[in-house]
């Protein structure tokens, strides 16, 4: 069991399209992936009431960072993950979730009371603004071929440990 790849999947500010794409990629890959991957944290797939984040081989992170609490959680993920991978456009570039960064004065005035009330950060950040990102899978949603190629590499290492 301990030879499985320990994976976390996290979403911040975004539409979670990469999560959906990942779930759809399970359709054709689940028999291999479920054998080789231990989903340590993946709120979309199972109840996760662990108080503390656990150690992970890989953390996939989608979405941009809108608030201090999100920033803190991202940093906790970084500490627990050997490899942090930004998936999808919002995580990699910030866009389109960072569109308020480019609002004109009128647009900004309209939303300011919401930003104040719920303590949004002044700007929306991409992941690499705040933490070290090891790999990126861009695209809106993430580029499925790049994701599959990356998974193949990650799981090849696991195969090496399992059968090597």
């Amino acid at each position: 069991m301990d030879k499985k790849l320990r994976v976390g999947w996290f979403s911040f500010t975004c539409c979670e399209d990469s999560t959906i794409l990942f779930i759809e990629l399970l359709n054709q890959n689940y028999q291999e992936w479920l054998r080789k991957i231990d989903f340590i944290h993946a709120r979309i797939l199972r109840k996760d009431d662990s108080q503390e984040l656990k150690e992970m081989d890989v953390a996939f992170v989608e979405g941009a960072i809108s608030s201090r609490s999100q920033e803190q959680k991202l940093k906790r993920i970084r500490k627990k993950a050997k490899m942090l991978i930004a998936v999808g456009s919002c995580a990699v570039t910030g866009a389109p979730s960072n569109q308020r960064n480019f609002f004109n004065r009128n647009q900004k005035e309209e939303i300011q009371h919401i930003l104040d009330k719920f303590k949004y950060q002044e700007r929306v950040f991409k992941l690499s603004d705040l933490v070290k990102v090891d790999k990126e899978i861009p695209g809106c949603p993430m580029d499925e071929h790049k994701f599959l190629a990356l998974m193949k590499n990650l799981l090849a290492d696991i195969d090496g440990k399992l059968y090597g």
Partner: protein
Amino acid sequence: MESRADRGAAFNSGFLLLLSGTLQEKCIHFQGGEASLFEFFMHTHDIGDFDISLKEISKIEGHASLDIKIRKNRIEDLKFSITEWKRFYTQAIRGKPVTAVPQMVDRICGTCSNAHLLCCIEAIEKGLNIMPSSQTMLLRRLLYYGLIIRDHALHLYIFALPDVYGKSSILDFDENDPMQHELLHDTFAVKEVGNRLSIVVGGRAVHAPYPAVGGFLKLPALEDVKALKPKLLEIRPKILKLIKIFAEMPFELALKAPLTFSGLVSEDFSFLEGLIQTSAGDVVEEKDLGQHLDAVIIPYSHARGFKFDGSLLMVGALARLHVSKFKLHPNTLKSIRDYLGIFPSNNIYHNNLAQAIEILHAIDASMELIDKLEAVKPERPAPIKPRKSTGIGVIEAPRGTLYYRLDITSEGKIKEGEIIVPTGQNQIAMERGIYELVENLLEKGTHREEIVYEVEKLIRAFDPCMSCAAHFLRVNWQ
């Protein structure tokens, strides 16, 4: 009377803020009726004080949290909050050309992006008097049935089914138990067919690139569409099995509070056209729906709630079967004869059964469309002639009625937009449902852990989509 007034005052202060005069009466009515409840607890529990705080509810689309304060075994405060961080789409679309906006707004939601796409396109076409061709409408239907299959399957297999089997995840299903083994494999087989249908017709299941204002930018090859039929036929028995499971599921919660069910009704149950009908007998044209939906500010939630003419509202599969079950495909109706009598149902958990039935309908309706399709004509999207106008689009997203109103300038840019999503419309009923459920459970002396589990199960039955609910709201804080 005095004790009842006390109970009213104890009722969730957050919720009371939402209530206008008429609803306040309903609320107090909803509070009453269990006069002996309090005394019962006084005798059986000396201390019944505890808090429930769910920070990130799992197996739903997006982020939501729930806080319940229980004192002396009574709910003192209950807040269901949508905790998605907003991206301000309503502001961001202003000034953008109508040709660009559909591909912007479909980024509101990862799972039902094609619903936002088609609803936005409809609003623009209505505003600019563009009539899509019959081929375009047929392809949009197919694309949409693909969405219904994969989105409902995501919810039913991955989110809801573990609750039926008392598991934390579909991934924990026992490979040595024949039924559980089959269901695990069905999960991915069914989703894949919906996924494939959307990819063939729309270019991708998420944020489909081909659909556009006036038509399709790229058309599918006839043989690729035809090849989908055997795949659809293959998953049909799997869905019959799923329908049976959810029909036999013993979970029940019918709200005591009066609830209006509302949905778009069309002759072929297409999700894309028709008139809005409610369980109260209202019939509303798409263009007038906005006048009936009253926005309600929920101080602790990032999203706003809605009522229908002042009534508690529920939209989605349960509501659709409430108002239009006889419009389902004839083959679907034949196959679900034994279960059709269950609807109209006020049992919130029957939303799962209704979704399973809608998957069957999507399969049957798609197969008929594919059979009828003789050729894919090389049509281009209808030309766009900008004019100052207001366009309204209404479709049934997987989770319920989706409403777009777009004010368009004479240059063909968006001046102002309003988007009302299903989860916003369900949010108040959802909180009310949680309240009633927790009240029932406290009455039975249920433990905290089980209350948490049951509440999550109920929230999942509503199938909320927080990504949708939180991202484009114009909120006026008083």
